[in-house]
């Protein structure tokens, strides 16, 4: 049967090239081409226009707000993610499964609805409105609302990344440390954290990426006040709607750059964690 075997090999090889071809074509069309378009559009009117667009005060404000919201989301969700993972993997209690699925809720809900929820909660129609007014607190159509919406949308990333990890690793090492007299915080710092650090970083990176790019929820709570409540994605939309394509693409290129940095970091972390395991 050598002939049949060879025919099979040829068939398999052909299939391989066809699959590679399809993937490449798809990737070029859907990913590479858009990136090239962004770069070429951004630079279409030369460097000076590009620099002017990204150093524009409104753009810089948007950048700061994006960074603020991202940082807040990462910090909040890391703390929450660690606490939730600890709770869900080390204890059993009634409603555990319920809590576990609730963590995934932001993945399932459309970001627009998330944004609307915050408007309902803190906006004019809310019962809390009077309380907030008397204490001079503005949440919606202001930076706090944007931060809240970003936190909501990126809520599950860290927890989802480390829960399976902690489940797989079990609690033996923590118990071993307990028998040697280590307290809760020492165990967390010296045993648990080092064990999950790569997973945690991976979760943080995904959370960062999502927080920076979030559009839907933020758009609803922002109110689009230029220089005040616009993040980078919102700023890009405004520029685009004003037919200021070059500036829109210039600002977009910043987000693309950040995304590429994150991608590189992500690969580095994957490589490191594989090396250690």
């Amino acid at each position: 049967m050598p002939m049949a075997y060879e025919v099979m090999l040829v068939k398999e090889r052909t299939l391989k090239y066809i699959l590679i071809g399809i993937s490449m074509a798809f990737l070029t069309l859907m990913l590479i081409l858009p990136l090239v378009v962004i770069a070429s559009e951004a630079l279409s009117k030369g460097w000076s226009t590009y620099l002017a667009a990204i150093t524009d005060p409104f753009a810089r404000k948007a950048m700061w707000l994006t960074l603020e919201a991202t940082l807040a989301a990462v910090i909040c969700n890391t703390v929450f993610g660690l606490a939730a993972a600890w709770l869900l993997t080390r204890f059993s209690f009634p409603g555990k499964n319920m809590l576990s699925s609730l963590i995934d809720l932001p993945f399932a809900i459309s970001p627009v609805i998330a944004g609307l929820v915050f408007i309902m909660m803190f906006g004019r129609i809310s019962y809390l409105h009077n309380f907030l007014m008397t204490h001079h607190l503005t949440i919606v159509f202001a930076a706090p609302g944007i931060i809240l919406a970003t936190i909501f949308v990126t809520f599950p990333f860290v927890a989802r990344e480390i829960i399976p990890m902690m489940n797989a690793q079990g609690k033996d090492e923590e118990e071993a440390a307990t028998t040697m007299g280590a307290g809760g915080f020492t165990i967390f710092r010296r045993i648990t954290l080092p064990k999950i650090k790569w997973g945690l970083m991976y979760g943080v990176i995904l959370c960062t990426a999502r927080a920076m790019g979030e559009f839907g929820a933020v758009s609803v709570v922002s109110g689009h006040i230029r220089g005040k409540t616009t993040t980078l994605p919102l700023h890009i939309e405004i520029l685009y709607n004003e037919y200021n394509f070059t500036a829109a693409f210039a600002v977009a290129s910043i987000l693309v750059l950040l995304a590429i940095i994150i991608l590189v970091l992500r690969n580095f972390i994957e490589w490191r964690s594989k090396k250690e395991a």
Partner: protein
Amino acid sequence: MDTYVELAHIYKKFGDFEASHDVNFVVEQGKLVGLLGPSGSGKTTILRMLAGLDTPDSGDILINGQRVNDKAPGERGIGFVFQNYALFRHMTVFDNIAFGLTLQKLKKQALRERVESLIELIGLKGFEKRYPAQLSGGQRQRVAFARALAPNPQLLLLDEPFAAIDAKVRKELRQWLRQTIGKLGITSIFVTHDQEEAVEVADEIIITNKGRIEQKGTPIQIYKEPRTPFVAQFIGESNRIEDYTVFKGFDRLNGRMKEATAGILRPEFIEIAKDADEILTPLAAEKGVVQTTFFRGNVIQVNVEVKGELLNGYRTLEQPPLYAGDEVFVLIHRVYCFDGTKTTVVENRIKSEINSVFI
């Protein structure tokens, strides 16, 4: 000998599962004790409660005369060796062993000396900078042992210490552990489901079954005088027979009620002889028919049918071979018989009478 560990009326449930039911025992200072039982019999729970990793529902745990129920694991003066070692995977051998000492805020020099002496004890010099993933199973086991010993515990608890190691290394490690613990003189309790391991390593064995303690004693006591039917069946090889009074030498009931006739026969209680010349007291022997024989390396196992019961015994390679269908003499020396929840040893009456005549 002083009592070092005492468990009094310990009860523990996990949901509906009763892991400990009125568990009572004491362990004397310096003893190496094996908790032996089938899986799910509650032996690991006992160990974990001693360590403070689980809390009993009721009852007292005393270590060195003090009630430790409310003490944190780290305050009980124990060292714990986990079944899968639970070495800190992101730490080197040195750091693993040093962990407990760093918590005691030991001076750097003293810490180094202590860790180095322990590494010497476990024979892993030159491996200090290795990570657990770079060690063999036996080496990991030793590191776990040294790590547990580092803070100078007064009581060492080992959960299935040899379960995850391949058979050949296991035997060496058992001997090594027994010697090392003996040298250190530290009171130790280990959990195992392997009776060979328990018999070989332990000074005393505690048999657990369904959350209860069945018997505690030296390996020889447990073997020769099993106190409950469970122990009689669990320890050694055993053939359960429904009615031992049908056999020659056991027919007189000695006032026993007829219903208590079930018994346990061990291969070593049975002598299988090719002819009357091969045994001292042929009068006390039954006649049987060989069913099958198996070569078992150092002995030959013979399965023989006697009065409808299938029994097995051993013959040495030096004795004349037997074949299926041969008629043989089967001398039953003794039987473990059940009397309610107690087990008693019944000797072959005819054999004893003949022997006393000879004397």
